């Protein structure tokens, strides 16, 4: 049991129980490809799960496999510095259209955001299949409806989005604080009366004036 760094434990029986829990926690996390939330883990190893997770994380920190927290869950992942040695041929971003990549970024930084707002930011209509493909990847989902005229649907990112991009929370999005400070995370349409940025009803799908 040399590998575990057991601290502040004197009683042999207590130490053994703790090691047992660490082993179970390790096995549970190892067996699952998906992140597991603390609540689920606590139901299996007990309320001290946070401390156990910290210990396990520290143990794995220098290794080829790390224990990481993304979104609401914990999971084992290969170490990021090994990426050049492990990289797979097919790159996800290759297969995504530029529109999809941009839309995902706008959605991530401006969420909850309506489709009309995404269009206002990009200055172009969202082609069919863009949100579809992002949803199929499990990165986005519909959020609450906005309580404005038309009650438009908003979109938000999922925990799997955080997992995929290795983010612990949305606060860890690259440069998010700088962008917010610079006022660039304002999703209101600004070019009144222009293109898809139709001024009068910002949250609605572009109105068709015929009806």
């Amino acid at each position: 049991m040399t590998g575990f760094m057991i601290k502040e434990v004197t009683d042999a029986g207590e130490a053994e129980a703790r090691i047992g829990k660490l082993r179970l926690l390790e096995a549970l996390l190892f067996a699952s490809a998906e992140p597991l939330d603390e609540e689920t883990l606590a139901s299996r190893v007990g309320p001290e799960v946070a401390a156990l997770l910290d210990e396990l994380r520290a143990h794995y920190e220098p290794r080829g496999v790390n224990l990481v927290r993304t979104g609401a869950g914990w999971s084992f992942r290969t170490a990021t510095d090994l990426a050049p040695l492990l990289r797979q041929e097919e790159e996800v971003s290759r297969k995504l259209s530029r529109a999809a990549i941009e839309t995902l970024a706008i959605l991530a930084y401006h969420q909850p955001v309506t489709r009309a707002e995404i269009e206002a930011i990009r200055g172009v209509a969202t082609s069919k299949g863009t949100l579809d493909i992002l949803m199929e990847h499990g990165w986005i989902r519909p959020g609450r409806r906005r309580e404005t005229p038309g009650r438009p649907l908003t979109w938000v990112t999922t925990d799997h989005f955080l997992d995929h991009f290795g983010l612990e929370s949305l606060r860890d999005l690259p440069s998010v604080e700088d962008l917010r400070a610079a006022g660039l995370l304002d999703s209101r349409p600004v070019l009144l009366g222009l293109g898809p940025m139709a001024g009068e009803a910002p949250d609605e799908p572009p109105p068709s004036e015929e009806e």
Partner: protein
Amino acid sequence: MATDRKTEDAAPLAAASEPLMLVLDGFEGPLDMLLALGREQKVDLTRISILQLADQYLAFVTEARKVRLELAADYLVMAAWLAYLKSRLLLPAQEDDEPSGEDMAAALAFQLQRLEAMKEAAAKLFARPLLGQDVFARGAPEDINIRRKSVYEVTLYDLLRAYGDHRKRQEGGVLHIAPIRLYSMEDAVRRLSDLLGRMPDWTVLSSFLPGEEGGPLLTRSAMAAHFAATLELAKAGRVELRQDGAFAPLYVRRAQRAADE
């Protein structure tokens, strides 16, 4: 041409001094194109010359029309908007409740900065170590479901997809209807209504016409349809028409009263 937006790289336009390369592939709409033009000024977007940008864009559109390049309507709307912006920037300030040229220019500059910020954010996001590409999950997860609540692997996507598929079947599947080679008045009315809603001021009717790529018959029918459509819209009190003399260009704008209703 203008409709192909899937290409990866933003094929840039040549510098304004050289003949414009009419390459629309790769632009995600007019704003994207403006951003590419703006970058050529090689200054910070906050210090960009909006006037110069407008000139470059308008030159592009003029060139495009010369070689009968089919431009999507949103490129034309942007052109009209920029022409209007230019006039407001150049003419002495007027006493009306329209936004000032400076305000409009600032709004455009902000829009470009925001779009650029999002493009950079997207690049940074995808430069991160990605799951399944740079970082890997357990390759052989063991068959242990420790989450009591999800016995069935059904996601919201599955649910919505199922409903979408169901509705699609109900709507009778995919119909293939041969394209009609004539431009109908209904479409001209609709196109004009859409465009006019965004046009700030008097605009030459001919600038609304789609390109001439569909052959002379389609072009002529488009011209006739748009002319008839303006008469129809004028009759309904939705647009105002102006012509300064016989055979002079016909100008159209949204009826000022109807716009407020």
